[in-house]
């Protein structure tokens, strides 16, 4: 049984969907960050798979930069999270309603 590109893409899509579920149902900000990591990683699988099956390194390059971005996102996001927690003593999404018009 040969494993083709579509297998990887479907796997990636399933992981992406799991990530979306997490994004929508998580109320805790930290948990939300976990879900976004899942989203980014699912995409990385697609990139690597496409790179492999087309014999092109561009996909890997993209995955590489995605990892870089994910790392910086975590750094800044956690910093903000800590500041928020210091101020309000919780990281509940429902309490973050300062953007209410």
């Amino acid at each position, binding site marked *: 049984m040969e494993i083709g590109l579509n297998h990887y893409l479907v796997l990636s899509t399933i992981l*992406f969907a799991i990530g979306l579920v997490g994004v929508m149902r998580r109320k805790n900000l930290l948990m939300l960050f976990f879900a976004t*990591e899942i989203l980014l990683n699912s995409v990385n699988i697609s990139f690597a798979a496409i790179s492999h099956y087309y014999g092109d390194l561009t996909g890997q*390059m993209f995955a590489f930069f995605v990892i870089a971005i*994910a*790392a910086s996102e975590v750094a800044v996001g956690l910093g903000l999270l800590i500041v928020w927690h210091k101020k309000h003593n919780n990281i*509940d999404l429902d309490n973050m309603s300062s953007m209410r018009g």
Partner: protein
Amino acid sequence: MFEAIAFYLFAFLTIAMFYVAVTTSQALYALSALAAGMIFISAFFFILGADFLGAVQIVVYSGAVMALYAFGMMFFDTTREVKEKQGNKAIVIGLSSLAALMVVVIVAAPIVGNNIEAIYPMTEGVGNTQEVGMILFTKYLVPFEVAAVMLLVAMIAGIVLAGKKMDLSLTLMNDTDLMTMKEEDKKVHP
């Protein structure tokens, strides 16, 4: 055959880990599951011949990012159960499935796949890490530097945001000021 077995095994493991990561109500479980999922993903990279990427995945995610999250979690009460939203489950599941379906339809459609040409083709007999290095430091040099600057900025931002009283310089303060500061600190955190 070996490849297929490896793929299905790791696919199952990854999906299971991530499923746990988004559904569990224990923060520690979620963190552990996520870390495991990340490592399993690196397995895919190795299967696909992207050795460097796999290594980076383990180093960055399982090492740096997870460590960061772990530090972040030290601020909060991790033993407490995480409260979940009491929202409409159908919407969440429906929207996610729909998105997945759409993505599958798009990637499975034969319109794109036919005429793709490799811009940076892999060369035979050269290790993946070497190849990545050659491309990254020639064609992607500028994005690479930009990414480096971005990481630096993110690091400074993380330090400034998380650090205490970063607007004050402890080395330039005289002793009396330091003492009053300590006194105030004690008042705030007895």
